[in-house]
C-alpha cells in the first residue's frame, strides 16, 4: 500500500459512507477552520478532548480536514503499509503526500497539502498512550503549519493582556510546571508544551492543545492543583493529564502576540529571579528540542526560530521552590518586553 492509497482508503471509509453521518468537531486554529471527522464516538471522545477549548468554527469549507479512525473500535479497515521490522522510532515517508508511521504502535499520520486532507489512524484507541491523546496530530499539524508559513514549536506559553511569553527548553526544564503555576493569576495558558508560532509584526502564538501534564513532584509543590489531578490519566512517564480549561474556568487563552522568550530553570536559591539573556541562549533552548521532533522542514524551522529570537527580548527565569512565585516575574517580563516592542 502506498501513501497515496491511504487517502483512497479514507475516501472509502468516510466519503463513500453511504450518507452516514460521522461525529465531527470544527475549531479555529490561527483563524483557520480545522475540522476533525471521527469514525465513531469513541474516537471523538478521545481525540476531541484536547481541542474543545478552542473556539468553534462556523459553516464553510475547512482549511484542514482530518479523518480519524481505528479498526478495533470502528470496524473500519486498517491500512497495510509495508514496514521493516526491528526499527524503533518513526518512518517518515516524504513526497507530495506525507506520512509518518510510529513503528512501535503502528499509528499513522498523513497529510496531503494539495487537498488539505489529513489522516490519523491508530490500531486501537483503547490501547493508546494518553500522552499522545493529550497532544495528537503534531506531525500533521507541523506539515499544515509549514503550508501557511507557520511553525509548530516545542514551547509552553502564557499570556495576559500585554501579550505572551514563550517558555522554552528541553523536556524536564520546568515549562509545564511554570505554565500550571500561572493558574489562578491574571496570566492565562496558551499552551503547555506545544504551540503554533505565526510570524508577523508582531508574531503571534496560538493554542493547539488544551491538555496539561505534570508529575507528582510538581503537584506536591502546588498542592492547590492536587484535587484537579486526582484520578487523572497518566502518561508513560507518570505525568497526570488534565484539560485545564475544564478544571479552571477562564484559564486558557487562544492566542496572543509574542512579547518575550523565557528560558526557565530550577534555581538553587529560595527566590524567583530573572535576567536578560542573549538571543543565542534562547535559541539553544528552543531550537534543538523543537527541531529534533519535526519530520521535514527542519532547516527552515531553525531559520524561523532564529528570526523570532532576534525580534523579542529573551530572559532566563530562575524558579525557586514555590513555582507560583514565578507569576509576578513573568508578568513583569511580559510588561517590560511589550514596552520594548
Amino acid at each position, binding site marked *: 500500500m*502506498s*501513501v497515496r492509497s491511504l487517502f483512497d482508503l479514507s475516501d472509502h471509509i468516510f466519503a463513500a459512507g453511504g450518507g452516514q453521518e460521522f461525529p465531527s468537531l470544527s475549531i479555529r486554529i490561527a483563524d483557520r477552520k480545522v475540522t476533525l471527522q471521527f469514525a465513531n464516538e469513541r474516537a471523538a471522545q478521545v481525540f476531541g478532548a484536547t481541542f474543545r477549548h478552542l473556539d468553534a468554527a462556523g459553516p464553510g469549507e475547512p482549511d484542514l480536514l482530518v479523518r480519524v479512525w481505528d479498526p478495533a473500535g470502528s470496524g473500519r479497515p486498517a491500512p497495510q503499509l*509495508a*514496514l*521493516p521490522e526491528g*526499527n*524503533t*522510532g*518513526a*518512518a*517518515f*515517508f*516524504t*513526497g*507530495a503526500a506525507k506520512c*509518518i508511521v510510529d513503528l512501535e504502535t503502528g499509528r499513522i499520520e498523513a497529510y496531503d497539502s494539495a487537498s488539505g486532507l489529513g489522516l490519523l489512524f491508530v490500531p486501537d484507541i483503547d490501547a493508546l498512550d494518553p500522552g499522545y491523546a493529550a497532544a495528537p496530530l503534531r506531525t500533521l499539524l507541523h506539515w499544515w503549519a509549514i503550508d501557511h508559513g507557520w511553525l509548530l514549536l516545542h514551547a509552553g506559553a502564557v499570556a495576559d493582556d500585554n501579550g505572551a511569553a514563550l517558555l522554552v527548553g*528541553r*523536556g524536564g526544564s520546568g515549562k509545564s510546571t511554570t505554565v500550571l503555576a500561572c493558574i489562578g493569576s491574571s496570566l492565562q495558558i496558551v499552551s503547555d508544551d506545544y504551540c503554533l508560532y505565526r510570524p508577523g509584526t508582531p508574531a503571534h502564538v496560538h493554542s493547539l492543545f488544551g491538555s496539561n501534564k505534570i508529575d507528582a513532584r510538581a503537584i506536591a509543590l502546588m498542592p492547590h492543583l492536587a484535587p484537579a489531578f486526582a484520578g487523572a490519566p497518566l502518561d508513560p512517564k507518570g505525568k497526570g493529564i488534565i484539560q485545564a480549561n475544564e478544571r479552571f474556568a477562564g484559564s486558557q487563552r487562544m492566542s496572543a502576540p509574542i512579547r518575550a522568550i523565557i528560558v526557565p530553570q530550577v534555581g538553587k536559591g529560595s527566590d524567583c529571579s530573572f535576567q536578560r539573556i*542573549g*538571543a*543565542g541562549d534562547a*535559541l*539553544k533552548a528552543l*531550537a*534543538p*528540542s523543537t*527541531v*529534533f*521532533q519535526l*519530520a*521535514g*522542514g*527542519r*532547516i527552515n524551522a*531553525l*531559520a524561523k526560530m*532564529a528570526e523570532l*529570537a*532576534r525580534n523579542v527580548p529573551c530572559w532566563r527565569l530562575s524558579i525557586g521552590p514555590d513555582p507560583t512565585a514565578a507569576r509576578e516575574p513573568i508578568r513583569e517580563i511580559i510588561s517590560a518586553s511589550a514596552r520594548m516592542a
Partner: protein
Amino acid sequence: MRFALNHGDVCSEEIDGEVIIINLVTGCYYSLGGSAAAVWPLILAGYSAAEIAAHFMPVASDPASVEAQVTAFLDYLCAEGIVLVSDDVVRHDVSEIAAADGFSAPVAEKFTDMQELLLVDPIHEVAEAGWPLRDTQGS
C-alpha cells in the same frame, strides 16, 4: 582544499554574533563564538584554510600558528559531520567580513543533551518509492 556545509544533515544560524549549528543526524548541536563565529562564514563561502588564515593573520598575536589552528578546527567540523570536503566548491568572496579584533583558536562548544531524544525516537526518512531508500533531496 575547500569545504561545504553538510546540507540536509546540518543546519545553522548566526544570531547575535553566535553561530548555532544543529546536526540533525547525530542529535548534537554546537555553539560557535569568538573567532569560530568569525571563521564560519568564510568556510561556508568556500575559503580554504590558508585563505581563512590569511584574513586573520594581521590581527593574530601569533600569526604563524593561525593556519594550523584553522586547519584543526576544520578537521573537527569534518569529524563531527558538520562540513564536508568538496572539490566542487567555488569560492565566493565575502564582501562584508566582520573586522576582527584579534584571533584565538576557533573552537565549537558541543551539546549532547538532545541525543537521547533522537536515539529513543529516531525519525527514519523514507523516499516515496518505499523503504529503505533514504530521501536524498534533504528536507
